[in-house]
């Protein structure tokens, strides 16, 4: 499937793009993250959470095809 992936803040500094359509055949969020770590080596030094369809998810959650976002530490306010 093709998954839209969004990058923010210091994660977008690593990926050099804010959004991409990523072709992927795995089932779990953790598998997608493995693929992204391969593509963007500097991700391994970064702290981030993952949202699927705007809700935070852990690695063992199934990919639904909805948007995935890599979110660095929040800094609102």
């Amino acid at each position, binding site marked *: 499937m093709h998954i839209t992936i969004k990058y923010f*803040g210091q994660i977008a500094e690593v990926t050099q793009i804010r959004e991409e359509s990523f072709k992927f055949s795995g089932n779990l969020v953790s598998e997608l993250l493995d693929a992204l770590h391969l593509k963007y080596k500097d991700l391994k030094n970064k702290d981030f959470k993952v949202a699927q369809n705007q809700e935070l998810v852990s690695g063992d959650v199934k990919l639904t095809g909805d948007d995935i976002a890599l979110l660095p530490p*929040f800094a609102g306010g």
Partner: protein
Amino acid sequence: MKDKKPMKPVFKEGAITSDFIGNSIYKHQTKTNIGAHNIFLGQVRADDINGKIVSAIEYTAYEDMANQKFHEIRELAFKKFDLTCMHIYHSLGTVKAGEICLFVFVSSPRRKVVFKALEYIVEAIKADVPVFGKEIFEDESHQWKVNS
């Protein structure tokens, strides 16, 4: 699934001015069942980090998710606390040191509830809303802000 109620706009481009805040207070003077207002303002600090001074913060957000989270915080706060009204504004883009980037305003007939409600809302915003802050130093280098 996602709540479909209309969402109040929270994000504002640039700093939140004292005029905007004063005007917002003024508008509440027709609501004569209110006895207590409590207002939180977040202001950008000119922090000294290893000898470099923060001159501004550039805010970005995952806007769709952030608006959804602000909406959930709002709905839950109205459920938990007897509030007459609640307003949340957060800056996007550049906010200079000394300027205001967050304005949370709660009102109630009685005072006890506004203290609890305001702290609850501000802590939830800090913890749950995907907003990102790039601290720009005077020499134009930067670092990424992390809420504590």
